[in-house]
């Protein structure tokens, strides 16, 4: 199915259905007041997956180490709160984004000269390195146990973090996600975003049209890292703790799986993937952890073999076939 001839001119305009996720998000708030803790996790995960979409889905950088940036953001907020008594949430998020963004720019500058298998390896190594470092820096990071019992001041001085029902956390996360989404959406529809897809589609040609390929990739990597850092910072703030579980191959693979399951390079894939994954995990994983893992594995194999566009891709196909 071909897009309409003027699709490029129109695609950045908001469509009515783009309100759906946000309407659903708000409706959830009123309909399931007892599930807001879960809902908050969901929103954080969506933001994390969205940040990955920018590099993996749009720029085509296959990385296994994206959890590193989530971790940098999470620990930045944690260390600021515990060691320096910096408990103000909004500035904490900004700090998390900045810290992760800087780490992203530097590591992008160093790592993005490689590609393919080597890139996969160096991103994996970087993340493992960070994990070990966080484990060793016990005085700052709390080592394996992390930093439990963090507390934060009121959001905007108005809304206290709500340890029991997660009401303010939920709305806070929804707002941060909306902001992050606007950033990503603006980027991917801009000329910059277009050039990222160009790099993904054909590197050789992108060089031949005179694009500063490596610079673009590094910038994209940095922005994506900053967003992942914000997601990490948000995670620490809403849960009130941070530990090494935010890191590691399983977490990195997890967010990649979420994105691919939803559909990468599709803007809303992060939403669909996170909802599908977390809801199923919530229902299955505690009762039947092994069955959950088995099902997940089989799903991945099936997606890799048959449904490369993920759930959204499947939906597009069905609509196209009609």
């Amino acid at each position, binding site marked *: 199915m*071909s897009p309409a001839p003027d699709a490029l001119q129109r695609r950045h305009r908001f469509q009515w259905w783009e309100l759906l996720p946000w309407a659903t998000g708000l409706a959830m708030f009123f309909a399931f007041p007892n599930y807001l803790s879960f809902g908050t996790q969901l929103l954080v995960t969506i933001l994390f997956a969205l940040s990955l979409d920018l590099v993996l889905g749009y720029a085509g950088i296959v990385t296994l180490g994206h959890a590193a940036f989530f971790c940098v953001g999470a620990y930045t907020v944690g260390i600021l709160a515990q060691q320096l008594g910096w408990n103000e949430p909004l500035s904490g998020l900004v700090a998390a984004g900045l810290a992760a963004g800087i780490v992203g720019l530097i590591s992008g500058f160093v790592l993005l000269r490689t590609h393919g298998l080597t890139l996969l390896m160096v991103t994996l190594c970087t993340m493992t390195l960070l994990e070990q470092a966080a484990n060793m820096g016990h005085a700052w990071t709390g080592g394996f146990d992390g930093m439990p019992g963090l507390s934060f001041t009121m959001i905007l001085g108005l809304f206290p973090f709500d340890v029991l029902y997660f009401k303010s956390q939920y709305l806070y996360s929804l707002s941060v996600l909306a902001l992050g989404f606007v950033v990503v959406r603006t980027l991917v529809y801009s000329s910059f975003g277009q050039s990222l897809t160009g790099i993904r589609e054909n590197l050789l040609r992108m060089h031949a*049209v*005179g694009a500063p390929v490596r610079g673009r990739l590094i910038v994209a990597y940095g922005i994506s890292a900053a967003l992942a850092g914000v997601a990490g910072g948000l995670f620490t703030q809403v849960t009130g703790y941070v530990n090494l579980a935010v890191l590691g191959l399983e977490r990195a693979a997890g967010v990649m799986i979420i994105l691919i399951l939803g559909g990468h390079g599709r803007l809303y894939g992060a939403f669909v993937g996170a909802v599908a994954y977390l809801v199923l995990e919530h229902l299955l994983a505690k009762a039947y952890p092994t069955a959950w893992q088995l099902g997940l594995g089989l799903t991945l194999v099936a997606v890799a073999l048959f449904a490369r566009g993920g759930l959204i891709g499947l939906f597009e196909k069905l609509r196209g076939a009609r």
Partner: protein
Amino acid sequence: MLETRGLCKNFGALEVAREVNFRLELGARHALIGPNGAGKTTFVNLLTGVLAPSRGSILLEGEDVTALAQAKRVKRGIARTFQINQLFRGLTVQENVCIAVSERLGVGGAMLRSAGQRADVLAEAARLIEMLKLGNDTGRRIIELPYGRQRLVEIAIALGLSPRVLLLDEPAAGIPSAETHILLDAIATLPKDIAVLIIAHDMDRVFRFAERITVLVSGAVFAEGTPQEIAANREVRAVYLGSALDA
């Protein structure tokens, strides 16, 4: 305009360019021909900076660009097409051309405005797409187009860089003969001050177009002259007949 001096390239013991001295004049319509494996594409790769020469230098308007990176050379006006299509296959024709035009206009890294709101880019892309008779395919993805049409997109992208030197590597390869005229018309309507170098395997296709022909054999310039001179050159014919017999 574009000149090479003593250009050499070795891959190990294999010499793919030997002391190539070559001049492309302002507004030239030049053809580079030669049998398979003569080093024609290597020569284009050297000119555009994909490969670094082992020895020798490349000058653009008298300035040495030998050490310049590919992207910098594009900015200075050297554009190319590929012998085998190198397109953004999952994107539409319009997006393909827009990417090139955006880079030329220096807005390829702009993050705030939507690509669909860049009226200047869109208009320029539309003009090129019309020029190559791709108007009906604007919104189609490259993978949905027949190879010959994809070939035209390849040209549109190169023109989108508004080059001063245009290197066309076997542009007609894969285009059905009924459509070659679109290509030739497009080349004919190029501004006169663009220097065009067409790389081709055989003489027939470029005869109509070229004002000068250089024959490359085994990485070295074998002969150069007007089409009439080249056509009359017995040694050139021998080379072609020889390679035809080998093949």
